[in-house]
């Protein structure tokens, strides 16, 4: 490693923490110059320049598909750029493998956590070492853990199994893992996607501490307010290009509103008014239209208990009522029983006890198809895993839940012309971008698959629709389309249940928000001012 410079802040302290720092601020640790990376049909990164300075958070803002993940994959050594160079401390370097990235001092925390749940914190941290011989030096590892815990300002038991940690804590372990090999650059990919508001505050707090230690931090986000709140420097990506950036002196001392306006102008130029709603601004600004008085209860879940699979939390005494014309939200960190609840409602699994009523009818023993006939639909979050058959064409997927039913089949024989006609109609109504209805679903983008799934589920006048993370992983326009669709359904008298991990989204969409934590509904909040905080509190309640 390079020798420590004379101007390092608190050099003794820094060295005790094992952070090899060179200089204090404004020292450019990593510079990307003209990085270009294309995949067949897409230029994911187009001549991108990026400077990452010590002691700064560089926020990289852009919607899904803007090229953020490709760029960090290049930094992390997962992809090699087609063109351009990467300067580390001013010297051109090849990052040709994840190992090379680590050796160059770049630690990455991915959006999806990569810890082994059955191992302890310490074991997980040591997994990344690899090259230090067969023997695990537990003593040294413990010391290193203590150092990093002090840097982050967190405390938990290094011998605890990861499975028992809250998501916020798991993320802290991920950050420790990224820093374990004395990284000087920390890359965080959408670090807030699984966090409660309280966790988010904590994340901001320890990013400040890491900055204070002279680390350079790259923060990838698609949320404008996060970029403004955490970034010292903001770069905006759009369709693979860097369309603008704000230098630290442009960020410091400006109000959040000024910055927001400026960034939106950079992102969308003159088309601002039209597309502003497509950016995830800070959330609940747009007031929802007040809905007329509550409709009757069309679906109720009473005291549902479900043991669940070993890796699931299951459901414990869950009760819920959905009214016609209302959007009910389910908030909660992923994996707290939301999927189990959705599947129990959809009829994909039977609860151990408790009931599901559709209107007055006890539907607990009914299967998926019977519930569908009674107007219930389930828009799954796992579009490719269970929502569609990737190898089948668009047309067949559009009737996947109606196999054998008229008019698509008669006496067991397929009426392909009728299916094609129907599929073409759905594709047109929902603007599914596909060459034709004979294209395999595997060739469609995630957004178009979601539109196809929506089109399929919302056909034939649904009465109750369960949406599981309906905008997850979608580009902002499709996400907006999905949200509009949900609002439209509710105005037509459909009862909607929206499961989401994004509180902002629920605040925008829902009339009431129920919160799930560890398989229990910890509370139901009417969507009124202050609901966000209340939801956040309930998310961590037991």
């Amino acid at each position: 490693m390079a020798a420590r410079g004379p101007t390092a802040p608190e050099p003794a302290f820094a060295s005790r923490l094992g952070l090899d720092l060179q200089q204090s601020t404004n020292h450019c640790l990593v510079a990307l110059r003209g990085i270009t990376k294309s995949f067949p049909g897409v230029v994911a990164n187009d001549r991108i320049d990026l400077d990452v300075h010590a002691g700064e958070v560089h926020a990289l803002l852009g919607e899904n598909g803007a090229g953020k993940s490709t760029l960090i994959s290049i930094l992390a050594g997962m992809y090699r750029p087609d063109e351009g160079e990467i300067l580390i401390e001013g010297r051109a370097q090849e990052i040709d493998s994840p190992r090379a990235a680590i050796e160059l001092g770049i630690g990455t925390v991915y959006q999806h956590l990569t810890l082994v749940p059955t191992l302890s914190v310490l074991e997980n941290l040591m997994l990344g070492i690899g090259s230090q011989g067969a023997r695990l030096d537990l003593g040294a590892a413990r010391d290193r853990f203590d150092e990093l815990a002090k840097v982050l300002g967190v405390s938990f038991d290094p011998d605890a199994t990861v499975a028992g940690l809250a998501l916020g804590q798991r993320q802290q372990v991920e950050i420790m893992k990224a820093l374990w090999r004395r990284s000087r650059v920390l890359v965080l990919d959408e670090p807030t996607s699984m966090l409660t508001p309280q966790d988010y505050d904590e994340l901001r707090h320890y990013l400040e501490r890491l900055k204070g230690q002279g680390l350079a931090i790259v923060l990838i986000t698609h949320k404008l307010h996060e970029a403004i709140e955490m970034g010292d420097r903001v770069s905006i990506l759009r369709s693979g290009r860097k369309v603008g950036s704000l230098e630290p002196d442009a960020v410091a001392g400006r109000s959040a509103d000024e910055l927001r306006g400026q960034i939106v102008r950079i992102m969308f130029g003159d088309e601002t008014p039209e597309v502003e709603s497509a950016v995830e601004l800070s959330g609940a600004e747009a007031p929802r239209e007040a809905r007329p008085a509550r409709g009757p209860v069309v679906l109720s879940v009473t005291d549902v208990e479900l043991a669940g699979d070993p890796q699931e939390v299951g459901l414990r005494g869950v009760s819920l009522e959905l009214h016609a014309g209302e959007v009910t939200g389910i908030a909660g960190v992923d994996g707290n029983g939301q999927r189990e609840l959705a599947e129990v409602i959809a009829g994909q699994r039977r609860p151990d006890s408790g009931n599901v009523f559709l209107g007055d009818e006890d539907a607990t023993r009914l299967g998926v198809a019977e519930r569908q006939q009674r107007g219930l639909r389930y828009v799954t979050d796992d579009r490719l895993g269970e929502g569609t058959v990737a190898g089948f064409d668009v047309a067949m997927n559009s009737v996947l839940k109606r196999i054998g039913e008229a008019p698509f089949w008669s006496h067991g024989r397929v009426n392909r012309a009728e299916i094609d006609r129907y599929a073409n109609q759905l594709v047109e109504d929902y603007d599914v971008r596909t060459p034709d209805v004979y294209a395999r679903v595997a060739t469609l983008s995630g957004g178009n698959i979601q539109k196809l799934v929506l089109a399929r589920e919302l056909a034939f006048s649904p009465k109750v629709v369960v949406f599981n993370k309906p905008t997850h992983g979608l580009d902002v326009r499709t996400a907006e389309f999905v949200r509009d669709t949900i609002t439209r359904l509710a105005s037509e008298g459909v009862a909607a249940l929206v499961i989401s991990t994004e509180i902002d989204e629920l605040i925008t969409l829902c009339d009431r928000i129920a919160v799930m934590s560890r398989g229990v509904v910890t509370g139901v909040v009417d969507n009124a001012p202050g609901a966000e905080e209340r939801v956040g509190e309930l998310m961590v309640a037991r």
Partner: protein
Amino acid sequence: MSARASSVAARAAEAVAASLVPAILALVATGLLLVILGHDPLEFYGDMLDRGLLEWPGFQESVIRMAPLLLIAAGLIVAFRANLWNLGADGQFLLGAAFAAGLAPTLVDTLGATLTLVAVMAIAAVVGALWTVIPAVLRAWYGVNEIITTLMMSFIGIAVANVLVKGPFRTDTGGVARTDTLPLDDRLPLLGDTQINAGIIIAVLAILAVHLVMTRTSVGLRLRVLGENPRAAQHAGLHTGRLTVCAFMASGALIALAGAVEILGIWGSFRADFNPSFGLIVIPLVFLARLHAIGSALFVAAFAVIQIGGESAARKSEVSSDILLALVGLMLLFMAVTEYLRTRRPTAVGAG
């Protein structure tokens, strides 16, 4: 050409190419092997073609051989398409054969030839279907890997078939343990003046039926959904357990029917330890055809020619007939390689 037709045609062309390329590569590689062994591959392949296809007796032999192979292929496709790996074909085949050989010579005295043939084939099919129930139920409701259970049931099935032949079905006449023999006149009728029995008709009808069911009916589509994405099947509300058991039973029935046809058409009797091991031969063929029924029929036909003509050609040029197994093995190997190269070809990767 309509969008669908052209899209289907393009995919079909790709599938045909992906099936033929490995077959051609295997022929070339086996040719090289023959050269190394000091033989003329062109002469060998020429003899193979002559004696398996072009000369009348060889042609008849090949068609006769196709009947059981086609029925097995039909049975395998039903299961494999639903992503159920029925590897117990040999057990199911021999049980069908044993029941056919054990019952037909007795029944024919009371029922007459036609009724006996129909009844015995039905019984064989039922036996084959029932033999798959244990692996099917274990798979459907307990998630037990059917590859292991069907293989185990196959060993048991082979043993049970032999126990039957050496016990209750054993003929009174001395010599090697075997069943009574069905008189020639009571066997499956021959087609015109040929030596070809009606088994081929049954087999062709079966494979056509499987093709139509898989491509045109709701049952076939349900099985394919189950095969392509079992979680989607669950999500769409299909009764996956019931479907699994049905697919397994249909598979077992067709394969056992192959055993019955082999006995009723050719042998007339089951000698102890009879086992042509057709099941394991057909598996690579249906894979080469990507579980497509008509494609499988073409591969089965080609294989029958290779086997019948090849055995004769091998005898003539004094090569071990194991060279034919090498040929089929190489086809599979090249298929794996071409498949790898095909799927590795970069497709659209999402950015961002």
